[in-house]
Each structure stands twice: as C-alpha cells, then as structure tokens.
C-alpha cells in the first residue's frame, strides 16, 4: 500500500486515482437570472447587475464565485506606487512610450501608467473552509488585540494571504498597460470549501476577468497538489529488503480537505500559464528534498493544462451565446 489514503486498488476516498481531478464546472453571469433585476440595481437581491464580470468555479465540493468591478477610476489615495510603476516611471524618464499610454503627461508620483488590481477574498461563514491549525494560541496576536476571536483572526489572515496571491497573480495575467489610471477590483467568495480553495479562487477570478471583457495576455489555470510520503518509517524498514518501489512518495492532485489535513508531506497550489511557465506557486509542508518538489511542480503542468482547457471551452461557449444574443 503506497499511502494510507489509497485503497489496495490504488483509489482515493472518493474513488479517484491519485492523478485525477474532481469534476469541474464553470458558470458565468449569463447563466444567472439577471434580467429581472431593476436597472438601478436597487433591489439588492442580486448584486451581479452592478458588477462587470461574474463567474463561478466548482471543483467537486469546492465552489468559488468571483466578481469583477472595473476597470474603474482608481482612487487617488489607494496606494503608494507599486513595484511595477517604479519601473514604469523609469521607462518614462528613459523616453519610453508609456507617457502616450497614460494619455498625456506623466506627473511624477501622480499618474499611473499601469492599471492596478485590487483583490479580496471572503470565506463565507457556512463554507467548511480550511483554517490553518495554530499551536500557539496562548499569546494574543495583533489581530487578537483588535478584538477578534482566535478562529476569526486565523480566518482573516488566511483570507488576506489568499487575496495577496490573487492580486499579484492577476496583475501578471491582465494587460495592465491598457488600463492606465484605473483599477480592476476582484472579489472572490469561497461559497463552499472542500480543499483547493486558493486554486479555485484563482480560476474563478480569471474566469470573471474574461466575463468582464478585460484584456488578458497570459491565460492561466491553477491546481492543488500534495505529496504523500509512502508509509510510516517502521513499515519502510520492514519493506526495505523487499520492493523498493513502495518507498516512492505518492503525488495526488486536487486534494479534498480531508486529504489536505492528512497530508504529511508538502502541499502546494500551483498556477501555470498556458505557455508552460509557472505563474504562481505557494508551497507549504514538511521539509522535503528538492527533487520531489521539482517533480511535484512539473506534474502540475499537464493538470493545469487540463483545467485550462475546460475553462477555455466554457468561456468560448459563453462568448458564442453572447454573440448570438447581440445579433
């Protein structure tokens, strides 16, 4: 038996093989009954009318919905210059063409030659979402001081982390040069969580960007992956004189939250661009040697391509439907 999570036949708890993804479902705002909402959107029953793009991504029991607002005017006070803009302004000083893109002269420290992405994530209260276990709950942290309970504080940090991953990943996906002086806000709700929330959030956010008609240069897709060390050490010693193949760690794709909790190796969320380069990588777990991690990262490439293919077909059919409606 390679892993305690695999049956003798090599199947997982839900009947999948280790390298099998869960069933993916993608839906866009076009599927939601939007026509009923009044034009001013005052009813509040369906907020989708107010947003520019909406998509939901479901993988097994995990569902994430993403809203995109914008491109809209960036608030003057939103943030200091981002790293991109430091270099962008350098281009301007070097006589680059960014000044033209900004539509007029570029003020020092004022105008933005590149658009920005604002991202936020909410794990909806009823979603059975994964909260990282903290073993040091006895001390009051910064968030605790702010009056949050321990679990709420942990949830908030997790949400913040996911939002940061989302923001930085999507910034590289969108052609921000086209959205000078503007902001694209992305909000993701994890409606139900059963492992792979970050990957699902990334996919949902990407689809919502497509739905909003925002120019995307690098299509991407994300999956969750985990490495399960073969067996406990005692069994390894027993098997050491027997077959060596039993000591190979098992790589599993698209972990459920139970598998995520039981994983004693490393777990990662990997996002790949369609051209085959890594877009984002968040890896966490027990110390693992580099060859295993390298194998894990490379394994995700084909999985991401499969997810991307599903998303592409769904978005193409969505576009076709819209084209028909417009005709």
């Amino acid at each position, binding site marked *: 038996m390679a892993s305690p999570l695999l049956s003798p036949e090599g199947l997982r708890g839900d009947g999948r093989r280790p390298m099998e993804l869960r069933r993916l479902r993608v839906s866009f705002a076009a599927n939601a009954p939007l026509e009923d909402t009044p034009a001013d959107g005052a009813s509040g029953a369906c907020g989708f009318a107010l947003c520019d793009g909406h998509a939901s991504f479901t993988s097994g029991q995990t569902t994430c919905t993403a809203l995109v607002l914008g491109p809209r005017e960036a608030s003057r006070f939103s943030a*200091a*210059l981002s*790293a*991109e803009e*430091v*270099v*962008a*302004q*350098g*281009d301007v*000083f*070097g006589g680059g063409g960014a000044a033209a893109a900004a539509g007029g002269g570029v003020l*020092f420290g004022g105008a933005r030659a*590149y658009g920005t992405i604002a991202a936020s994530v909410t794990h909806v209260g009823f979603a059975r979402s994964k909260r990282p*276990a903290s*073993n*040091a*709950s*006895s*001390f009051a*942290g*910064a968030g605790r001081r702010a009056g949050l309970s321990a679990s709420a504080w942990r949830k908030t*940090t997790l949400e913040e*982390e996911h939002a940061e*991953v989302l*923001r*930085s*990943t*999507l*910034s*590289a996906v969108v*052609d*921000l*040069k086209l959205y000078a002086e503007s902001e694209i806000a992305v909000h993701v709700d994890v409606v139900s969580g059963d492992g792979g929330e970050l990957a699902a959030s990334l996919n949902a956010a990407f689809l919502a960007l497509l739905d909003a008609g925002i120019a995307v240069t*690098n299509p991407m897709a994300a999956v969750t992956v985990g490495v399960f060390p073969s067996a406990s050490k005692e069994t390894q010693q027993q098997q050491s004189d027997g077959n060596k193949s039993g000591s190979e760690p098992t790589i599993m794709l698209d972990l459920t939250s139970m598998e995520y909790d039981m994983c*004693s*190796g*490393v777990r*990662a969320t990997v996002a790949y661009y369609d*051209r*085959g*380069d*890594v*877009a*984002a*990588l*968040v*890896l*966490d*777990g*027990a*110390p*693992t*040697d*580099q060859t295993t*991690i*390298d194998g894990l*990262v*490379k394994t995700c*490439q084909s999985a991401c391509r499969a997810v991307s293919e599903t998303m592409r077909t769904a978005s193409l059919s969505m576009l076709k439907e819209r084209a028909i409606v417009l005709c």
Partner: protein
Amino acid sequence: MRAPAAAAASVTYVPCRLSGSSNIPARSKHRSVHIQIRNNNSAVVTLGRTQATAHVRAVLAPPSSRHTRTGREGTLRFRAASAPHEEALASLEAGAARVLERAFVGRQRRALDLESLCVTAGKRVWHIEVALAITCADDGCATEALGIAAVAALRAFRRPEVSVDTTGANVTHIDGADDAHADKVVVHDPRDREPVPLSLLTQPLPFQFAVLDGVIIPDPTPLEVAAASAPRGAETGSEVMVVVNERGEVSQLAKLGGGAMSPDAINKCMTAASRRHEEIMKVIDETLASHEKAKIAARIRRHGAAVAASRKDDRAMAAASASANAASGMVVDAAPPPTQGNHNLAGTIGLRRMDAPTLEGAPPAVPDAWPPSHGPASKTAKSSVIGPDDTPANTDAQRHPTMLAEDPSDLEDALLVKKAKKAKRKS
C-alpha cells in the same frame, strides 16, 4: 515595500545592469550579512541598509491547554514588534512572522523541540516568544534578514535552569484542593546555575530571490525586484521566497504572481537557497562562537571586579550577597493563595498563575514591560546580562523602541551598586 523616492531616476540602469550590457555586471553574488548578538537574547542582522532585529523572551506559565499532548509542550511564537504606525514595516514583519512560525512549528515539522520546554506536565511549561522588528527595509529582503536574526537569537538565547522540588508534595495548602500542584518549581538564577540553551532540531531560513530572464539574483533590492516583476512582455521575471533547512530540504516556497518562470528556474532557486544556507550558517556559527568567548571573558572580568569590591568594602558586599542569595534559587510556589482577578493564560481552571512567588528580601519589584498579565513570572525567565554590549549608550541608542524593556538583572546590578554606595557613605 516602500519604494524609495529617488528610485525612479536610477531605474533605467537596472535592466542594463541585470542583462550585463552595462559596465556593471549582473550580480549573482550575495551581499555580506553582518550579525550582532545583544544581551544573550537578541540578534541584529544588517544586510546592506536593511536592518532587522529578533528578540527572544521566555515565560514560565501553564501550558496553552491541558490536553495530554499540548500539556507536555511549550510554545514558540513569532510576532511583529514594530510600532503600529509604521504600516509598511509592520506588514513586512507580520508576513515574516507568518513564514517563520510555519517554518519552525508548522504542521508536520518541529524546528524546536517543544517537549523540552516542559517543566511539569500540564502545569508549567516555557513559552518562547520571538519579537521581530525591522528598523530599515530600504534594501529589501526583510523576511530573509528577520529569519537569520531569529535563528541567531534563538541559538544565542539561554533560558534559566529550572528544577522541580518534589519533596514539597507533603506541604498542606490553605485551600488544600490540589495536591497535584504541590510541586515546587525552582527557577535558578543565571549566576547560580548555567542557563540552558534551546534545543533547535533544524534551522530553517527563508531566502528571497529575484529571477529575471533566467538570471537568479540573490537577496534582491527593491529595485531589482521591481525590475524583475515589471510587466515587460515576454521577458518577465519574478520574486521567489524559499525556506530551506541545513539538509537542503524545502519546507515553504512562494512565488506570487510576477511574470512567467520556468520550473527549472524554481529548481535553481532551491539549489541556490541551500547553498546560501550553508554560507549563512557559517556566519551565524562564527558570530555565536565569538559571542560565547566575549561572554566568558566578561564573566571573568565581573568576577574579578566582585572580588575587588569585597576587599574594598566588606559590609557592602555582605548586603549585596544577602539580596543576591534571596534572588538566586527563587522558589516559585506552584500553588500560591488565589489572587483576585485570575488571568490564567488560557483560562485553565485549577492552574494558578505565579503571582506571589516567595521573594522576601529580594530587590524591590522590577518594572517589567512584558507581558503585564503574567506578573513576575516573566522576570524570572530573563537571562542575565553578561554580554559585551550592555553599556547603556549602546543599548539605548541602537535598540528598537519596543525592545527597550529593561533587563531586570541590569537593574538588580544597579541596585546593588547603589546599596554599596549607601553603605560606604554611612561608614
């Protein structure tokens, strides 16, 4: 990360520098790291202009819960220590604290042997806290610098020796409720018994890299990160953070957004990180060795001074030794009479905080900034100042404001000197 105001003007040369086309070649060498150990419990790391401090404290208190497992384990915690108004720095520290906490005591990994922090199971364990502060982040790599500082500080830190007096089992208490709490925990003064180092099992360190066109730039400055993560069509790079231990095993890896990066580049980063780990370990080892030497030298000096003082003034020394005796071998009764306002650490019932240690004759209460609710318990955990850097000028000018909690033994020494002077005047 706050971009320096002058950055924009100099930006154009960065890409040239990285591509090696200008006379400044692409950098593939690490900047040198300077580590300074202060007061046996904090480390200051300087990496270019970036300066980071890690400050270790230990508190003897009830365990966070009375679970059979957690009751037998102490805790290790990292926290951001910057002033809250320093928003940019505070968020860097919070991020670093998150990374380090996962690296040291995350699931499935233990860099610190938490069971060795247990004094009496379910009653008294050591809670270790590492406060992280960045004083300057102008040269980037805040997480890396804080990680190095944390490992150096944890290795330099010594907790006081503790022994459990089981003979006190027959002592009857006023309430007589818990005989199980009759064990007495004796915290020995550092001058009395040699303090104990923490048992670090592995030493994970975070390292940051910028990757641009396949070139891996170690400990990147904000400008280099900006150049790497700027959207420039197909030629994009990214920033990567790798946590690696001395066996070259990776426990965390983060590449958030930025540009495209081939899986091979990630592999290269991991190799570079493990090589970098070896180099940094050498620096830490050297620093700690020289610190140890200086400590021993200072102890000899102090001992010599004490002998001279005793020759000079016998009466002063007698007074001093009386209070020193009381201070050393402080007996902390695990079951003092219940005090009003029971701020037990985790609200555990039946475990009383050590609010009333039997400290008759000890120097008057020492102002102790942290944590107020734990009372004198934290005081007992402080290590004494024997390091070479304990001159007031040094500590005041360079320490981070939040690091300014006085070391009690410092004050104790001051008190002793005062007493000696008084006695002198009287005579």
